[in-house]
């Protein structure tokens, strides 16, 4: 390459030179020109920086691709049809065992909440926690004595929630609400065996 005065090296040649791929006869003229041309030196410096940056970035991305590929290769190698079948079988078995255990195991034992109801409607209502078994103890002081009593739990709108019968003992009639009640206001009604309403107790479930 012989450059005339006022000529600069082409970008193509500078790039090839920066990449080290310029043929030797061209290198001679280019390097001679570079020795005396600051503009081409600056351009070559830019090309050097660009080529180094592209090389570095491409190498980094290649390594990242490679490691990603290696990871998926390992995963796919590990997951052969036979191994996958085994893994699925084991997982199914584990799920079955878990389901059986859950179905067989008794529900978590929650201590029933004991409460004595002594008041009637209009008085201050007793409080009980929601969704918890309740052991109710109804005070029957001053009520006629019967061998059994009918019990009914109704919500604030009068819908019947539970019905049961119970005997009196030591001036009280006891009953249990195993499933508990949802939040709201309830009334526990006490009936005689013939169905006569004897008393109503207020209960607020929070």
């Amino acid at each position, binding site marked *: 390459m012989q450059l005339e005065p006022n000529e*600069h090296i082409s*970008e193509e040649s500078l790039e090839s030179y920066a990449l080290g791929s310029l043929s030797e006869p061209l290198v*001679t003229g280019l390097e001679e020109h570079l020795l005396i041309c*600051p503009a081409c*030196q600056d351009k070559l410096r830019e090309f050097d920086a660009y080529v180094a940056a592209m090389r570095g970035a491409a190498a980094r991305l290649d390594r990242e691709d490679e490691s990603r590929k290696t990871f998926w290769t390992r995963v796919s190698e590990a997951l052969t049809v036979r191994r996958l079948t085994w893994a699925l079988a084991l997982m199914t078995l584990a799920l079955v065992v878990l389901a059986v255990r859950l179905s067989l195991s008794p529900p978590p034992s929650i201590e029933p909440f004991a409460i004595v109801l002594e008041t009637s409607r209009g008085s201050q209502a007793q409080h009980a926690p929601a969704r918890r078994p309740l052991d109710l103890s109804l005070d029957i002081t001053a009520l006629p004595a019967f061998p059994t009593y009918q019990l009914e739990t109704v919500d604030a709108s009068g819908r019947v929630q539970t019905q049961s019968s119970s005997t009196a003992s030591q001036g009280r009639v006891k009953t249990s609400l195993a499933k508990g009640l949802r939040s709201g206001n309830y009334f526990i009604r006490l009936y005689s065996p013939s169905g006569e309403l004897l008393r109503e107790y207020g209960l607020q479930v929070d």
Partner: protein
Amino acid sequence: MAGFNTEALHAPQETAVTAADPTGPAAPPGPNWTDLVAKIKLDDQSGMEDLYRIFSRGVRFYLCRQLGPQDLEDKVHDTFLIVVQAVRRGELREPERLMGFVRTVVRRQVAGHIDQAVHSRRQQVGLESGTAVMDLNRDPEESAIHQQYEEIARRVLNSISKRDREILTRFYLLEQSQQEICTQMNLTETQFRLLKSRAKARFGELGKRRLARRGALRFA
């Protein structure tokens, strides 16, 4: 990266040389080598000054590019000493070939330094004392700049298609020739050149944007 001139990349395929870029500085006019050599031979101080003025930047650039910044001034000085002494001894028979002669001396200097480094490494193998190796590493500022450039290049490569990225990777990283890439990837030379120039333009554009953002931050 603000100085990247991307316009020329969009120009049609050039030959090895291009006419002076009207937007850039003109190439230096060719000095009268015969006069210069004559002055050096006569031990004329102005001849020495001219020689230094014309070649010092280029020699420094070449040596630094090949050998790194360590002891650069000493190497530049040695080179000029060799050139001047050789000219005075009359070893340069064709004065108009001064440029080629300086290049030869610089190349020999580079080869000599590399040879010396290899030789001293070989001699010191097995010795407990560490070998004195040349520091070719960039200084912290240059390292930071390089990292930023690499990050920009990464963004450029991530923003193009997988196929385009492969083309650029083959060219810049695997050093495959343009012809090889075009044949294997079924590309025309124009497509190849266009992809390269677009990537470089994008690189320059992102670099400028980053520079502008930094400037804005600095003056905010």
